């Protein structure tokens, strides 16, 4: 079971690290030029992607775009490193619930918008695929947040 949990942690942590690095590093894919990594982050596009959901109050879209990728990076990194495993799984679970709600909101309103799930590299529109993907990630994150087997943190807590 431990090995399964380790693999799940690596998968979900890896997904979060990747999505954060793409947003922070402003990774672009252009035809003919391959993948480009900009050393100077530019959050304008991601802020626009956030704004398109019409979920946060307008004034807060930038704040979300500024902070979200770093929260993802930190939580994903800690999960991969096995530090504060349950806490980072809790953060990721909460984020997945928020992402799912946002995607559901966009679908319910029929917004034809970029998903923005993996920053600007991801030109996919919001749709059922993104919804399904997020459900899988939510299930894994929730499992990691609640399962007993891997929770050395919880055992130490109860022992104390």
């Amino acid at each position, binding site marked *: 079971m431990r090995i399964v949990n380790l693999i799940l942690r690596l998968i979900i942590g890896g997904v979060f690290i990747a999505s954060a690095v793409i947003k922070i590093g402003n990774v672009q894919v252009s*035809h003919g030029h391959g993948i480009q990594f900009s050393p100077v982050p530019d959050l304008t596009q991601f802020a626009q992607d956030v704004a398109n959901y019409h979920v946060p109050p307008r004034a807060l879209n*930038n704040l979300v775009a500024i902070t979200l990728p770093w929260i993802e990076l930190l939580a994903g990194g800690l999960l991969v490193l096995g530090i504060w495993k349950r806490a980072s799984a809790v953060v990721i679970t909460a984020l997945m619930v928020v992402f799912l709600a946002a995607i559901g909101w966009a679908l319910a309103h029929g917004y034809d918008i970029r998903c923005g799930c993996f920053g600007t590299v991801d030109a996919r529109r919001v749709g059922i695929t993104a919804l399904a993907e997020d459900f899988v990630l939510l299930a894994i994150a929730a499992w990691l947040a609640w399962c007993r087997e891997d929770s050395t943190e919880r055992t130490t807590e109860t022992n104390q």
Partner: protein
Amino acid sequence: MAGTLRRALVIVMAGAVLGLAANALSPRRIPFLTPPKAPPQSSDTVALDEAKALWGGGTAFFLDARATADYRAGHIAGALSLPIEEFDDHYPQIQPMLSLDSTNVVYCDGMDCDLSHRLMDRLRQLGYHNVRLLVNGWTTWHSAGLMTHTGDQP
């Protein structure tokens, strides 16, 4: 459990602080709060009647900022497809037809649609000084019964 939640909160706060710090240090930092949307200047937008006249005059270029699939499904007759989200791929093909002094009317669809605003900004950055925006362009044009085309051709 309380400990886990406290740690989770620490992760969120630390991530937020890192993000704010990184943005503050970035040469391309964005404002902490999103500035309110500037109402379009009247010289920026073009009313349907004027757009119709420009279209009839044949000297203005109509540029469709929407995705290629939307363009294909129906566009203002004669309009060129320049989807802002694939600007770099499409612009080289369009550029030889435009001139910096020509009147360019950009449009997308829907009152909230920001594609045409972004296309207008992009074209202005490139030196096109006469860019106008037809608000809610496709619907306005289409429902006025004006000439439209479908397919890849303008």
